[in-house]
């Protein structure tokens, strides 16, 4: 694993069960930190970008210059933080801060000035109030699984980590809600309610590690979102702390909010509006059964048309996953899922309900599929069969990582453009002399092309990044968007003006200024840097 070994700082590398889609890097220094263990998830792609860091190519985004006046006051600032939270709540030693220097986009590494680990909303309020007065920037952090650099610190910032705020505050099965602190992991929310037959619907593949706070900040999606929606569709109320320390409650355990929809604005604000400390979420009764059917086609056009026909027919499956030939080969070699190796495209379509309903739905879906000349139709007949079919898909990313470094994209496109976009992606990568594999959520057009490359070859790494940017531009050109679920962060920030006009960006930046007039929260993300400087300036002008 050349990409990882070149990372001097990661003392131990543990492969987290190989079938898991990602390699988890658990740094020893983190276990020294009290409270919950902090897992630092990291993809092969991230590992590769790590390597790039040694010789940053021109395409990597620049971060803002740290504020000298803050760096010069470091010791005094740390002293104040310790006075607020106690020595046990502040990490200021070098090796401790290093644990927070990056998220899963490890190309960007910068230890923060200090790390604070509050336990309550009031702690967060005290911290933010102080930072606002002292003019110190703040980077909120959950588990650090962001793939876009959303939780990357700057040298002059304090990281506020939510790892000690992971309690379930209230479960209310009659009203079908759960209230939690936002440092809880996504999976722990479902775990807290599953004995009563409920689940929390948004389920990002990183759900074992990622926190609700990160999900809220990124408006994360998951495999179930075709039917159940993304994070913003499953939240009822929030408690958050604004940069001046004020605690605001937005809505509550109610379905409608009283005035402007601030919840819509805050969810997906990438940690730039405030620190969300508590949330009330919808929980949903789980359907008794779920089963997939596997459909293999001789062309990606046929598979794409089949997806459209299924949705057009009035059936909304829980999930429709797509894999192309290179992805199938790798997943099958690894997971022995029984995938056909001679098809160009494979769909896994899952439906849920009572047993007899599932039989009928799977029959209807296979009938539709027959219009597109499928080479393989295999409906699951048992739980073991279902597990086997899913095993390959779930292992696809991890399996791909075993044979090559890859760069994972996240654009969304209108489904009708799928065949054309897939062939264009093939061409773009071929022009850059790179291979590509496609594994993605077909139901909602959220693509995850994996551009394969050798991280030991700097030229190839740069070509991979260039191909990635071209693919995202293509997604926007056909009517889609830059990011479907991973967020903008640092990674896509400089592509924002492809999708948005200056007034579109101004409308967004003014909202940022309402919540955080001095632009102290999560600096250097989401907007191109020149636009950010402009936004900050005009906020100051309007305030004056």
């Amino acid at each position, binding site marked *: 694993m050349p990409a990882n070994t070149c990372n001097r700082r990661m003392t131990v590398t543990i492969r987290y069960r190989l079938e898991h889609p990602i390699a988890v890097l658990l740094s020893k220094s983190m276990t020294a930190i009290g409270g919950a263990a902090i897992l630092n998830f990291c993809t092969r792609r991230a590992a590769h970008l790590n390597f790039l860091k040694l010789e940053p190519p021109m395409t990597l985004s620049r971060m803002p210059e740290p504020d000298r006046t803050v760096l010069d006051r470091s010791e005094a600032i740390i002293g104040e933080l310790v006075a607020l939270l106690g020595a046990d709540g502040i990490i200021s030693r070098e090796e401790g801060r290093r644990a927070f220097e990056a998220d899963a986009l490890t190309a960007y590494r910068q230890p923060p000035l200090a790390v604070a680990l509050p336990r309550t909303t009031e702690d967060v309020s005290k911290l933010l109030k102080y930072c606002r007065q002292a003019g110190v920037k703040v980077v909120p952090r959950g588990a650090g699984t962001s793939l876009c650099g959303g939780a990357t610190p700057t040298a002059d910032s304090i990281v506020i980590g939510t790892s000690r705020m992971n309690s379930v505050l209230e479960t209310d099965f009659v009203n079908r809600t759960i209230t939690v602190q936002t440092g809880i992991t996504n999976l722990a929310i479902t775990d807290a309610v599953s004995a009563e037959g409920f689940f929390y619907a948004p389920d990002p593949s990183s759900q074992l590690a990622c926190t609700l706070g990160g999900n809220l900040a990124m*408006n994360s999606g998951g495999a179930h979102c075709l039917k159940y929606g993304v994070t913003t569709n499953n939240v009822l109320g929030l408690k958050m702390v604004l940069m001046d320390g004020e605690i605001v409650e937005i809505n509550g355990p109610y379905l409608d909010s009283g005035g402007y929809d601030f919840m819509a604005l805050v969810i997906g604000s990438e940690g730039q509006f405030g620190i969300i400390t508590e949330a009330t979420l919808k929980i949903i009764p789980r359907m008794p059964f779920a089963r997939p059917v596997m459909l293999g086609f001789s062309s990606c056009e046929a598979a794409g048309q089949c997806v459209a026909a299924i949705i057009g027919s009035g059936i909304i499956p829980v999930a429709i996953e797509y894999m192309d030939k290179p992805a199938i080969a790798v997943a099958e070699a690894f997971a022995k899922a029984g995938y056909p190796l001679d098809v160009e495209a494979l769909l896994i379509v899952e439906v849920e309900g009572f047993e007899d309903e599932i039989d009928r739905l799977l029959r209807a879906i296979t009938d539709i599929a027959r219009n597109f000349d499928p080479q393989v139709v295999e409906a699951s007949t048992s739980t073991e069969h279902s597990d086997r079919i899913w095993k390959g898909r779930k292992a696809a990313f991890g399996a791909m990582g075993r044979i090559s470094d890859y760069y994972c994209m996240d654009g969304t496109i209108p489904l009708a453009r799928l065949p054309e976009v897939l062939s264009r992606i093939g061409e773009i990568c071929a022009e850059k002399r790179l291979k590509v594999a496609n594994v993605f*959520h077909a139901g909602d057009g959220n693509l995850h092309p994996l551009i394969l490359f050798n991280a030991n070859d700097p030229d190839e790494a740069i070509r991979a990044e260039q191909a990635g940017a071209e693919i995202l531009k293509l997604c926007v050109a056909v009517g889609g968007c830059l990011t479907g679920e991973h967020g903008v962060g640092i990674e896509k920030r400089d592509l924002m003006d492809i999708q948005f006009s200056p007034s579109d960006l101004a409308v967004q930046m003014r909202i940022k200024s309402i919540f955080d007039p001095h632009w102290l929260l999560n600096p250097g993300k989401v907007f191109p840097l020149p636009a950010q400087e402009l936004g900050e300036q005009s906020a100051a002008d309007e305030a004056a």
Partner: protein
Amino acid sequence: MSDLQRPGADWELQFVIAGCAEKRMPVEIVGSGSKRGIGRPVDGAVTITTASLRGISLYEPNELVMSARAGTPLSQVESELATRGQMLPFEPIDLGPATGAAHGSQTIGGVFATNMSGARRIQCGAARDHLIGVKGVNGRAELFQLGGRVMKNVTGYDVTRGLAGSWGTLAVMTEVTFKVIPWPETAATVIYLGLPDDLAIELLSTALTLPVEVSGAIHLQAPVAARLGHPGLRIMGKSVTALRLENFSSAVAGRKQHLKEMLKVYGKALELDHRESLEFWGELRRLSVMPNRPSLLWRISTKPTTAPKLVAAIKRYMPVEVYYDWGGALIWLEVPAADDASTAEIRRVTAIHGGHATLIRAEPAVRAAVEVFQPLDPGLERLTRGLKAAFDPAGILNPGRMYANL
């Protein structure tokens, strides 16, 4: 009568708003004006109607997405969707009949600007959940376009959804893009008669915790049920508690059995078939059980389990007639007319039990005198003022519609 402007293109709208902003002239924004009676009355020197911004610009049934110009009548949107067996998931309610406006006249822009969702909200989400893209002009006369036409999109802040429910006070939407869903093959309704409020809400909550995907869960007190169109239900003189199931036929049949089995302690169930169900839920959607009268109409959002207690508390002060929707999470409350709209009592009780209350129907003089929307805590008020100023610094768009001085 104020000056009526009817822009037919985005640039025309920009031009009109730029002129008004410069002269600081207040503008009232209307779709068809069907919800004009709701909210605080707006005194605009200029009225802008979106009526000429009309037409469906994109419809991809296989992607479950549609874009329409904001002034497109809802009826046109829905009939176009029906040609492909699809519908708006959130079943927008029509306040027309309850507020004395014509029924069926609202525009699609007005639907999203007011975020008014009907019974299916408990299963499918609200209007705001389905709004994925918007084009509009703010009070600075800037044309902006946010979100898009794809369902999964986290590029930039979610301002699109943030405009839902802003009642035309932040921007004039010129085009909206939204998710749609297929019509279910069939619908059925299971009805229980004569339950008191607390038992009825308990029944609805039980049903909503079962994995049968109940898509409508309402309770009508007896006087309200007496206004139903269904002759059998109207004449019973009893309260009506109803659950809707929608799916393909055999699934509805199976789930209905399961549901009835689990709810048998609540008594014998009546059933409405597909056609009767469409009529029943259609009536509720038009709010025709709460016809236009001099009485006040309040809309209260709360927790289902507290809803009957909240209603009982208000009943200590005044006679009430109630339609509970969303399994009890939404209360349509009719109380006698009063100069102060009984605001003090209703807000106090709502504060004790938790929730938000909005005054929907009252004389214009009353609506101008009281707080129609839920009063804001200081923190949220500051954010609200900030948001208004960010979009409309001169305060020309629907001034005072939601809050006095805003």
